């Protein structure tokens, strides 16, 4: 006799994904670290309310508070102008993570747009994929450097140094990193198009727009999410590389890459000034990569539930 009471309650897909995600120890640890880092840069400035760009206007005082080792007043010490390193790390982290997130959003938007259009409309497939190949053949880091060099000053003049550079860098990174996502999404869409539910939807006359939004897009969410997570990591690395080469944000505007770049000059006397931002970048990227790894496993229905 079958006992109906043992049948479990139906679970939503995301509950399944979460329970699979939880079995990946590295990913859970990484998620914790990432959340802590985000809290550090967002909530941190409300607790540690020192102005990151405060330079003591009194010259003698400023010289006395320069290059301080860690103390209760300055937990991470001060830099060559007597600015508090902890506050600068928080501010820098805000910018770095914001750049990573926004650039990822742009590149995912572009990648999904190109991928879905190429996969869904047969006529556009050839040209769009040729375009993707062309973009893949571009030397990206040199081009990014050239773009930043050429457009930084005009944009900074037009929109202010901070928002101008931010927009430029985010846009440049987004425009040069959508190709992988586009390829993956296109492949998925091509496979989805052969499925019965798409045929059923088409046979009742669903227009293309609703077809894409209701039937195709929800089914390509998993690869998009994975490449989005990995996109954050590579965007953060690219931004800090640009800052490190001196072609990122202006000097008085801290990001983790910029702090590292500034610290290199003092590496012999004050190595910790290189270590802190470097560790912060590496931890962020490492945790994001691990989260991506865990997500990939959790979103793969062949692995899930095993």
């Amino acid at each position, binding site marked *: 006799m079958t006992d109906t009471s043992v049948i479990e309650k139906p679970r939503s897909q995301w509950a399944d994904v979460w329970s699979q995600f939880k079995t990946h120890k590295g990913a859970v640890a990484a998620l914790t670290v990432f959340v802590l880092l985000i809290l550090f840069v967002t909530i941190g400035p409300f607790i540690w309310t020192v102005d990151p760009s405060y330079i003591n206007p009194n010259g003698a005082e400023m010289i006395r508070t320069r290059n301080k080792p860690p103390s209760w007043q300055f937990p991470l010490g001060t830099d060559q102008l007597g600015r508090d390193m902890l506050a600068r790390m928080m501010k820098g982290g805000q910018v770095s993570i914001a750049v990573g997130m926004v650039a990822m959003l742009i590149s995912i938007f572009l990648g999904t747009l190109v991928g879905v259009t190429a996969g869904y409309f047969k006529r556009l497939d050839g040209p769009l994929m040729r375009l993707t*190949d*062309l973009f*893949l*053949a*571009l*030397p*990206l*880091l*040199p*081009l990014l*450097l*050239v*773009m930043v*060099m*050429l*457009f*930084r*000053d*005009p944009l900074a003049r037009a929109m202010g140094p901070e928002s101008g550079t931010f927009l430029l860098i985010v846009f440049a990174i987004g425009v040069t990193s959508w190709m992988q996502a586009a390829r993956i999404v296109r492949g998925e869409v091509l496979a989805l198009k052969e499925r019965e539910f798409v045929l059923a939807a088409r046979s009742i006359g669903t227009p293309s727009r609703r077809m894409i939004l209701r039937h195709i897009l929800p089914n390509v969410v998993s690869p998009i999410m994975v490449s989005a997570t990995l996109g954050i*990591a590579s965007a953060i*690395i690219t931004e*800090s*590389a640009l800052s*490190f*080469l*001196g*072609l990122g944000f202006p000097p008085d505007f801290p990001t983790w890459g910029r702090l*590292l770049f500034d610290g*290199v000059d003092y*590496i*012999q006397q004050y*190595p910790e000034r*290189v*270590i802190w931002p*470097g560790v912060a*970048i*590496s931890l962020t*990227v*490492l945790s994001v*990569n*691990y989260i991506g*790894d865990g997500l990939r496993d959790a979103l793969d229905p062949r692995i899930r539930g095993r």
Partner: protein
Amino acid sequence: MLTFTIRRLLLAIPTLLFISLVIFLLVDFAPGSPMSQIPLTVPPEVRLKIIEAMGANEPIFVRYLLWLKQFFYVEPLVLIDSIFGSSYSQGMQRIVSWQSRSPVMDIIVERMPQTLTVVGSAYVIGVIIAVPIGIYSAYRQYSWFDQLGTFIAMIGFSVPTFFTGVVLILVFSVNLGWFPSIYNTSLKVTDWDSFMLQVKQMAMPVAVLALYNASQISRYMRSSMLDNLAQDYVRTARAKGMSERVVVLKHVLRNSLIPVVTVIALGIPTIFGGAIITEQVFKVNGLGALLINAIQGSDLPMVQTLTFIFAVLIVMFNLIADVLYGMLDPRIRYD
């Protein structure tokens, strides 16, 4: 196969032309043009002369076509001349750097060996490390070796090269004093001592790049081995009584190397990009440093030519990877 190669070669021409146009236009249409960097105290007629001397007053398509002609026609002729001692290119105008007033290609040829020794040896070492690690990690999947390998690989491509470089400098040249932190390009290898010096100064940049490359390639190697280890022919080979060594190192390894070889070929141009950062960290006087210098000095011909050379490398190695794939794997035939 041959027709496929020829077709791909022909297809590469429009690709390269398009990329060169993109690079040219991007650099040229940018609002921060070098003409605006001539000091305002220079009288207007002199300024006009300067612009004329730079060739920057011509319309853009004229300059683009001239640059194309110089890159694809004049420079190869110069190369032929320098090899055979002929004089085909006499009196022809070459691409000239605005910064140093000497031909761009001469400077690039001068800088090439430094980049090639550092980047090349780093890549070779990276591959040599990565392949055995990948094989053993896959063979003993989820063992402590595999877990450790995964973790190190994760660190390898998560920690940016400029940070690993700086940490190495901190540990090995500031604290221990084993290696010099600055690469000395004028060092000539003549005897054993100078060879050791060369090895010492190359150790850190090569280690940084090799770690980064090895972490990526070992991942590919591992997953490719895993795919093949689960195949039926492996069971057949074992059932026939082949020794484990033959099964893994002959049957599985050869099949798993196919995708890895293409990945290795595809990675070669990207390491030149990665080397830009490493060269900056260790002050290696190579192509990357040249590019950064040209960018900061608004030396447009140099930037255009260098960026385009990077693009040519990418297109070329894509082609090589595709052809290799077809040659190594008889199941893949393009025609």
